[in-house]
């Protein structure tokens, strides 16, 4: 299509950057065409995202149990209860938001840097490269139930393999409470998650790295650039879009952490590692206080939207050159 640009026939006339191509002159495929192509997805989006989202907003204004006939309208009361730590729900909710925040803060930097380093290595030519690419990606294909149980047993403070091996070392004495006390619980959860998901980020990085023209590196070599200089002046800027994608996906995934804490720590000690999603699920689907749970979901969603906007703004400001 792009090769058939007809500069006289309608450039910009329909608000597109590029003219619609040869067919534009015959009056078919009018303004509706793109929307028709988008329609199938739009229908799915409306039915499964937009309508439930609006319905959820309605639910959050009620004391709502879908099986009880009595669903009193309470206005903003659910939100007001959450705005204070005086109430048990408010207190529990903000504690769980704090847990989610901590986890995101600890895991995102590691999940941005480590996969990048791995991708850089895996992008080099060496024997067994394909094998290692598969090895690093392998844990990602496992379900959260599998990795959760696996790490729970490895990390068990008294019966786990890790503490057993550590105790073989002459200078280690006693068990480290990997799954039952702070700050070890965070080390465990972050380590398990990094091990589990770094392959995904690494693959995206790798795809980005392979898109960078080798000519750039050759030219830089001719100019006498060192390895680090090549990384900071060629590799990193070329990965800008990939970095934006990886950062956004990783932040959102970390903020939605659920299974790891459910299986490895059960939220222990106390509710220290109970994440926001865990608490929302417990409240809405366990205790059937769906109005409350819906209100919490909206607050969490608001935070995630703000976080995404901040990431985009960051890349726009510092990424443009």
């Amino acid at each position, binding site marked *: 299509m792009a090769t058939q640009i007809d500069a006289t026939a309608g450039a910009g006339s329909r608000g597109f950057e590029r003219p619609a191509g040869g067919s534009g002159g015959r009056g078919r495929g009018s303004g509706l065409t793109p929307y028709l192509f988008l329609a199938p997805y739009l229908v799915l989006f409306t039915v499964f995202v937009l309508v439930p989202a609006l319905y959820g907003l309605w639910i959050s204004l009620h004391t709502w149990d879908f099986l009880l*006939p009595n669903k009193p309208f309470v206005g903003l009361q659910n939100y007001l209860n959450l705005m204070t730590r005086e109430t048990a729900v408010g207190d529990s909710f903000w504690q769980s938001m704090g847990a989610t925040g901590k986890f995101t803060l600890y895991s995102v930097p590691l999940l941005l840097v480590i996969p990048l380093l791995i991708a850089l290595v895996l992008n080099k030519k060496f024997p067994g490269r394909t094998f290692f690419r598969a090895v690093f990606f392998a844990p990602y294909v496992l379900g959260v139930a599998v990795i959760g149980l696996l790490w729970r047993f490895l990390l068990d403070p008294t019966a786990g393999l890790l503490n057993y091996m550590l105790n073989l070392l002459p200078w280690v004495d006693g068990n480290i409470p990997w799954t039952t006390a702070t700050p070890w619980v965070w080390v465990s959860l972050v380590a398990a998650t990094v091990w589990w998901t770094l392959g995904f980020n690494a693959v995206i990085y790798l795809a980005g790295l392979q898109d960078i023209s080798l000519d750039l590196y050759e030219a830089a070599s001719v100019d006498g650039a060192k390895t680090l200089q090549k990384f900071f002046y060629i590799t990193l800027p070329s990965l800008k879009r990939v970095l934006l994608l990886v950062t956004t996906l990783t932040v959102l995934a970390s903020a939605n952490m659920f299974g790891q804490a459910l299986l490895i720590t059960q939220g222990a000690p106390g509710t220290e590692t109970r994440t926001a999603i865990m608490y929302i699920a417990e409240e809405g689907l366990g*205790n059937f206080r769906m109005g409350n749970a819906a209100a919490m979901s909206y607050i969490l969603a608001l935070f995630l939207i703000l976080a995404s906007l901040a990431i985009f703004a960051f890349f726009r400001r510092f990424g443009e050159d």
Partner: protein
Amino acid sequence: MTTTPHGRPFPRPAVSALPQPVLPALTRRNFLRLTAGAGAGLMLGACSGGSGGGQGAGTATGTATGTAGATAAAGEYTGPAVDLAFWNGFTGGDGPLLLEIVNRFNEEHENINVAMNALEWAQFYSTLPSATSSGEGPDVAAMHLDQIATNAARGVIMPLDDVAAGLELSESDFAGTVWNAGIYQDVRYGIPLDVHMYGFYYNKTLMEQAGLDPESPPQTRDEYMAALEALKAEGIQGHWVSPFLFTGGHTFYSLLWQFGGDLFNEDVSEATWNSEAGVEAITWMRSLIEEGYSPADVGQDAEHIAFQNDQNAFIWNGIWQINGYGDTEGLEWGVAQIPQIGDERAVWASSHNFVIPNNRGADPNKQQAAAVFIDWVSEQSLDWAKAGQVPARNSVRESAEFAELTEQNVFAEELDYVHFVPTVPGIPDAMAEIETGVNEAILGSKEPQQALDDAAQRANEALEANRERYQA
């Protein structure tokens, strides 16, 4: 791992439980009324008329929740062949044993075919309501005692008074309070299958190692502490204290009752576990860690694994572990009643109950067949006892065959002093709070009194919200 045969209904992160707009008031009776003029009404009417002993729309219940008008009655099932879906949470070693019972039922009943489906209890409790309200739920299910009131109040399960009457069952047929616990607002919703309580398991190898007589396990507080001390002298940590519901939570409930306390006040409007008895119970559990009888920071199931590995001498655990320990190679173990640490004997227990889900537009034939199934299995509960349960039915428990089940009989002696969690709608919400409180207190992130107080405060708020919600 099957140390968690039932937990509080923990949600799963799936989309399947999205709220669905369902009107519980739309019972079959109302539906019949609505569609009376249409042919559909005639068809349904004909259906319920031909349902043998089924009383059709005859017995409306007066409960506020507007549960289905039809209640099935027991007896023979002579209608057309039906397939019954039977859901439960027996995903552990007990599942296959129950499946055998179900298969035998199918062989003996030509016109009823029961298909059993076991899913995790947590998933079961969050899926059942939505499945039932959309008419996709099972025709018969098994459920824990403490979930019955919640599900009755939410209209998930049907009144079973007529089933009980048809089966000619009454309180005198069943163990102690378990029969009455299936009643919510004067209406019966559950037919008890078993009672499962905590018991005392001891590792004979370790006891011998410490010079203790493995044939006379400690039963009093003094004996218990002396035994722990003897084990400690041999470098054995004798009683691992778990900070999780399994087994720490249930141990705490048992001790709370032993020290004369209770979980809730009389009308279950307030949590009372932060009483002196509660603090005493937690303090005793903490002291086991502080005195070196237990490691600190015991992980999920670690006390159970250590018991099987000859590292932990004593474990208070559910009767359902009998087969698990029996199958553990090289493990020499015995059972006794829960030792009396406090002022009186007491132990936590629960019960599996049969329920009939209130499926929208359910076939009365199926409900009738389900009643037959419940009656039959209840009579076969001896086989179920072998899975590590005490039969709820007196006739089975007093049979010669049950007397041959050594461990089950030891635990059955605890029936005189078992305590159940009160059956009040929404009680699992409050129980989740004490679970957290015990966790904090045992792990030492809060002082006992503080942990119990905080948990009680959160639970009281939940209880109040539930009173409004269920208008109870």
